[in-house]
Structure formats: C-alpha cells, structure tokens
C-alpha cells in the first residue's frame, strides 16, 4: 500500500511537468493545427537557460537563498524559452502558415533537431548530463509513511495554479477570446478585427513560458538535466495533450497527471518493470488515438486531424 501511494506521488510529480508542457502543445495545435515537435526542446532550453543564469548571473552570496534564487531562475528559464520560441515561430513556422500540412511538421522536426544540437554544441559541458542546483530547496514532507519531496510538491502546485490561471485568462480576457476565435476560424476572426498573427504569437509565447517554467522545476526536482530531456518529455506531453483532448486546457493537465501515473504504476507493477514503462505510455497513446481520438475533454468536431 505504501509503495502504491509513494508511486502515485511520483506519478503526480511527473504528471505536473508533463502537464505544463502539454499546455503548450494543446494551445498551439488548437490554434494552428501544428504538432510543434520543437516544444519539448523549448522545455529543455528553459532548463538550460535557468542553469546558465544560476551559474553565471546570480551572485555567489545569494545562491543558497531559495526565495531569491528560485524565482530568478524560473523567470530566466521562462524568458529564454519564450524568446527562442518566438524566434522559431517567426523564422520557421510563420512563412509556412499556408503551406501543405506536412511541411510545417517536418520543419518542426528540423527545429527540434537543430535546437537540441545547438545546445549540445554551444552550451559548455552539455555533451554530458549537467548537475542542476537544488541546495535551496531540499528535503521532503512526510505524510504517514510516504515521502513527498518539496520540489515535487512545488511542481504539482505550480502546474495546477498555472492551469487555473490560464483557463481563467482564456475564458475571460479579451486576448483569450481572440485566441478562441482564431482557433475556431482564423479568417472570420480576422474579419472581426482580430489580428490572427499576433494571437498566434501570443499562443506560442504562453506555451513557451509554461514549458520554460516546467523545465526549471524539472531540473530542480531531478537535479540534473541533459539535452535529451526535451524529446522524451515532449512525446509524453503530446500524449497527454491528445489524451486530454487537443485544445482543452484542463484536459492537457489532467492528461499529464494520467500519463505520469501510468508511467510510475506500470514501472512498478506491469511486466517488464521500469525497462518497459515508456512502452505503456505509447500503448495508452495509440489506444486513445484509435478509440477516442477526441480525447477525454476534446470536442468531437476537432477530431478531423
């Protein structure tokens, strides 16, 4: 029983990370129908941006003070992710806005490879996994016999809070309405006085900020980052977004939590153990796509992929 509960906690922590990334996938796909393969790398870039800030920017004296260091790193990660995402959007995706659908998808693959390689080549020492600072937030909360790492708790809380904020923003604000309108029909949205290009840029920016935050928190929690974290978590996140229903905000995060739980539970109890835990995520992905392509919270008319 303790094992199960402990695995559930780990699952929720992974799920929080995955959910935050999944928000970017779901929003971008909802608005431009592009599987942004590079989104996982945006997450990775955010983590590296925060690490760079910690290493070279934050003064030695305050590195141990969590309430200064952590916010600075989160902001740095988010900003780096956002800037990179906006550059990519402008240079790679925007020119292909009206191209056949395969073209931007392949471009996204190219961006993903290039981004990963750029970090590997130009970030000092990134050829091997790098240690990520954590000294400012250590220890766990004991709840009966199970342990909840503080960093893990932070991820879960941040994921839920940001999701709620995002949902409120999209449902109530002017720009949120513009985003929903553009997602439904860019041409009509344009007629209504919305600037679809600006809306799309905003969508990419929000998604990237969330991914950047996730990257930093992931690094803090795991204590070490490598250039490979992007691809795998990106695939998980995409699975989560599909599972939750593409275009649905809460779906993405709930999907993320489900994916996290599937991975840890499968790793613990399913045949093959942790060696095959990824396989179960892919099995879930395939099953969802085949049997319920609109996902848990998706709208049926969006199914026509």
């Amino acid at each position, binding site marked *: 029983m303790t094992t199960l509960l402990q695995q559930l906690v780990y699952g929720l922590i992974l799920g929080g990370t995955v959910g935050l990334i999944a928000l970017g996938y779901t929003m971008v796909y909802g608005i431009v129908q592009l599987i942004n393969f590079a989104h996982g790398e945006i997450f990775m870039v955010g983590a590296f941006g925060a690490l760079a800030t910690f290493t070279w920017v934050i003064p030695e004296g305050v590195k141990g003070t969590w309430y200064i260091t952590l916010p600075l790193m989160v902001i740095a990660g988010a900003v780096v992710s956002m800037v990179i995402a906006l550059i990519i959007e402008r240079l790679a995706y925007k020119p292909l806005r009206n191209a056949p659908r395969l073209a931007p998808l392949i471009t996204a693959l190219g961006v993903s490879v290039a981004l990963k390689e750029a970090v590997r080549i130009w970030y000092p020492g990134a050829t091997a996994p790098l240690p990520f600072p954590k000294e400012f937030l250590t220890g766990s909360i004991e709840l009966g016999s199970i342990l909840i790492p503080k960093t893990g708790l932070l991820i879960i809380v941040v994921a839920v809070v940001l999701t709620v904020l995002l949902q409120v923003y999209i449902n109530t604000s002017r720009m949120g309405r513009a985003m929903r309108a553009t997602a439904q029909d860019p041409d009509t949205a344009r007629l209504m006085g919305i600037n679809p290009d600006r809306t799309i840029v905003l969508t990419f920016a929000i998604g990237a900020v969330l991914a950047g935050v996730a990257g930093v928190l992931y690094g803090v929690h795991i204590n070490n980052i490598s250039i490979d974290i992007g691809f795998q978590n990106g695939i998980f996140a995409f699975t989560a977004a*599909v599972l939750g229903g593409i275009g649905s905000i809460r779906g993405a995060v709930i999907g993320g939590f489900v994916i996290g739980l599937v991975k840890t539970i499968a790793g613990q109890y399913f045949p093959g153990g942790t*060696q095959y835990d990824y396989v179960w995520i892919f099995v879930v*992905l395939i099953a969802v796509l085949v049997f319920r392509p609109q996902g848990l919270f998706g709208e049926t008319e969006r199914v026509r992929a």
Partner: protein
Amino acid sequence: MSEKTFFTNPAVSRVLGVAGAVLAVIAAMLPWSTFLLNKGAYPDKATLQFFDAPFELTGFRWELLIIGVVALVCAVAKVPAQRRVLRGLGAGIFAIGLINFGFIASAGGGLGAVTALDGTFAFGSVAALVAGVLLVLATIGQPLEEIPRWSTKLPTPVAYLGLVVSFAALLYVVSLTLTAGGQGGAASPYSGPMFLSFLGFAGGMFAGAAGLGVLKWISRLSEQHRVFSIVVLLLCALSLPFTDAGSEYWMTVAANIGVYAATAIGLNIVVGLAGLLDLGYVAFLGIGAFVAANLSGAAASQLGIHLPFYLVVIISAAIAGIFGAIVGSPTLRVRGDYLAIVTLAFGEIFQIAARNNIGGLTGGSNAMPNIPALEWFDGTAFNESITLFGAKLPSGVLYYFLIVLLIAAVMTVFANLKNSRMGRAWIAIREDEDAARAMGIKTGQAKILAFLCGAVLAGIAGAVFAHKTSTVSYESFLFMESVTLLAAVILGGMGSIPGAVLGASLLFVLPEKLREFSDYRLLIFGLALILIMRFRPQGLIPDAHRRAELAGEDAEGHTLQDKPGGDEPEQPKPQEVPAR
C-alpha cells in the same frame, strides 16, 4: 514583376553577367589564403602568393575555372534560357566561394586569412563570392525563361548513343563525387571542404544543364527508350567498382548508401504515394535485420538455425510486412498528424523492446554480432575480394552488386505499384481522402496495404543490411534514423524514385565526408530540413503531381501565383518521372 528597377535593363544584366563570369575566372587564379594552415597547405596550392603561379590550378580552383569559363561562354553567346543557366552557374560559384571562405576563415584565424594580412593578399574566395552574386543579379531583372524543349525525335542509334553518353557521364560524376576530397578523417584533413566544393561545382553545372533543358531532354529520351535506358543505367551502376571509386572503402560506403536508398524508396510508398507520414519507419528495417540475424546462425541467436539466404529474405520480409500491417491498422481511424504520432509511438516501442533484448532476439546492448557473410554458389564469401574481367575488385564489392540489384528490384516494384490501380488509389488518398472514398476506393484497405508494402521492402533491405554489416544493434534504428530517411525522401522529392535515391545518397554520404564537422552534422541537418521546407518543399527531383501540390502550381506545372523564381514548368502531360 512589371516594376522597373536598375536590374531590368538588359544592358545592365549583360554587363553584370559578363563581369561575374570574368571575375570567377580571375578568382580561380588568385591566391585564396594568406598563409599555410596548421594542417598543411590548404587544398591544392590555394596558398599561393599573389601571382606567383596563377596558372597552376588544381582541385576546387580547377572546378571554379571550368564553371567560370562556361559562365563566360553562356553570358557572351546567345544561349537559350540564358538567365536560368547563369543563375544556376552563379549559385554554384557562390557556393564554392562561400564554402572555402568559411573554411579558411574559420580554420585560419578570421577574416584576415581570406582578405589581406601582413601585406599579402588572398582575395580568391571574396572574388568568387562577388562573382556568384553578380551572376545571380544579372538574372533577377526579368522573369526566367521557359526551359527549352529539345526534340527527342531522333533516329534510334543516335538516341541510344545520347543515352549511353549521358549515363556514362552520370557514372563518372557519381564516381568523382564519391572520391572527391578523399576519405575523411586524419589522413586528409581537408576532405570536407573539398568535397563540398565539388558538390557546389557539380550542383552549379547541373543547374546550368537543367536550365538549358538538357536534363529534361535526357529524361524524356530515356522515357521513350525505357527498357534500353534501364539496362544501360543498371550496367553503369554495376561498373562503378571499375572506376576510381572501386576501393574497399568506397564500396562499403556505396553499399551502405544503397541499403538506405532502398529503404527510402520503401518509405516513399508510404509517404510519397499514400501521403501517410511515418515517423517510425526504420523499425521495419530493424525488424528485417533482427529476423535475418536470428535465422542466419548469428552467434548470439537462440534459435540456432541457419537458413539459406533466399528463405531468410522471404521470412524477414513477411514478418516486417505483418508488423507493417499492424502499425498501419490505426490508419483506419486516425488521420494526418495523429497518424504520424502513432507511427512514432510504434517506432519507439520497437526501439525500447530491442534495447531490452526482448525474448533474447535482439541482443540488447550487446547487439547481434557475427552474422555470417553471404556466400556465392562456389563458396566465395561476399566479403572477399574477387577478380572479374581481369580486374581485381576489392572486398565488399559483391555486397555492392547485390545491393544494386536490390535497388533495381525495389525500383521496379515501386514503379509498377505506382502505375497500378492501387498506386492510383494511394495518390487519390493522398490528395483527398474523402473524395477518394466517395469514388469507391477502399481507403482503409489501401492505407494498410501501403504500410505493408513499405514494410516488406524495408524488411528485405534489413535482411541484406544484417549480412552486410555482420552486427545488428538497436542503435542503428533510432528515431534519428527514421527522421533521416524521411528527410531523404523529402529532400529528393516525395513520390519520385530518382529523388529518393539522390536524397538518401546525399544524406548518408555527407556524414562520411564531413567527419571533421561531425559535431555540427545534426545541427546542419536540422537547419537543412527547415530551409528545404521553406524554399523547395517539392524536393530536388520532384514528382510531377507532388510538385503541383507543394509548389502552388497546377498539374501542368504553370505557377499559380505569379511569383518570381517560380519553378520550372513541367511537361504538358503530368507523366511519371522516368526510372533512373
């Protein structure tokens, strides 16, 4: 287009063209670097002092001289489609200049090395760059001409002679390309830039020839004499070992490329014809290879049987095909991007299973070593050297022959499938699935069959691959390989056979040649994907239908939007690209 600018003036264009060509010729004779690089003199006497020995040309400076002279002739004489030709040649000159400029500057310590330093001058690369720009500028004033159509109504012997000469020239170029710059690595530190320079040269010349309509003429001629040209091409491919490229090393490289080319053609069925994006395709190559390894008496095989090769191939193909049908089955319900993700998921599942040595069949991280080499009927192993027609051929050449035949077979299958009822159904599905369904095409069946055919071809290639490399490891079948194969298909032009071969050759020969830059290989690869999608989404040798779809042209090849630099018009009838 109607705006008047400085460049629309024909006199200006003419002057620019001639000036560019002359400058290219001069650039070939100028020194290119002000000092000796640390690894010795950079390619072929490029480090001459000013006018020391301007006429001792070798290597890339020869290439520049040739292309410059051709450009000069074309700029002065009245050639048909002059602007098209000059644009191609100019791009080639620019590429040669840029490659050497970048290399010398980065290897030799900054811009001083390629301009002026310590009173010596080395403006060769800058002159070549300017020459390239001038030539291109000379062509932007007016819209490009239609590609001239040369008559193909020739007496048969003349046509045959033309084809033989063309294909022999092609063989020569292939052999030159393979050996250009020599083997990469420590032995020849400059092989990378020298090879790239050659590519720039060959690309520029080909673009020029394409502008003249020569390539179209050859392709129409070979279309008319289909059987003859296939035979000649096959003979040309088989005689590659007799050229300069016939060393053990190049034969191995060529055979490796061949395996990937065959696989790329298989992927072309799924992606190019049926329009189903497959991001896990390399798994089928892997399945074929692992099945072959287990059935051929590899040391680590737990089955302990050694079947004859033909049986192994059939079984590999069958098992890969079964998996292909399984992977394809979600297509019944899933479309488009989602399908891409499903295939990616299958690819990852295969990779994880192989990494974990599933059922003891894949060897996991120990791989499957010691797969016995194939044997000829008289017992000669395929990895021995042989003597043929009095020429001693290096070891590995038999594998090369086998793979050439494999590619020929795969091409035949592809070409026949493409023109079959099923092929037309696939193309219809690619264009519009709902419409295809409405026309009575059983779309579900057709899509699964596409996956199945693609997987079978990859399975066959995998069986050959296993014997050729003698060790099969899951590391050869990672996601990156799937992306590279996909990129090969896209780079060459989706749905086009010569395109898939060209794409696979480029993508798998480049890493071999650019060992020096191996750190940047994937970065360049990623950027190249982005740039191709941006500027030439239809690929290098586009299929007629595909081009219509991707380049915004109608089926007859006329540009729909009036944009400058729109692509060259296709023949009036959207015909198949001839099997080359």
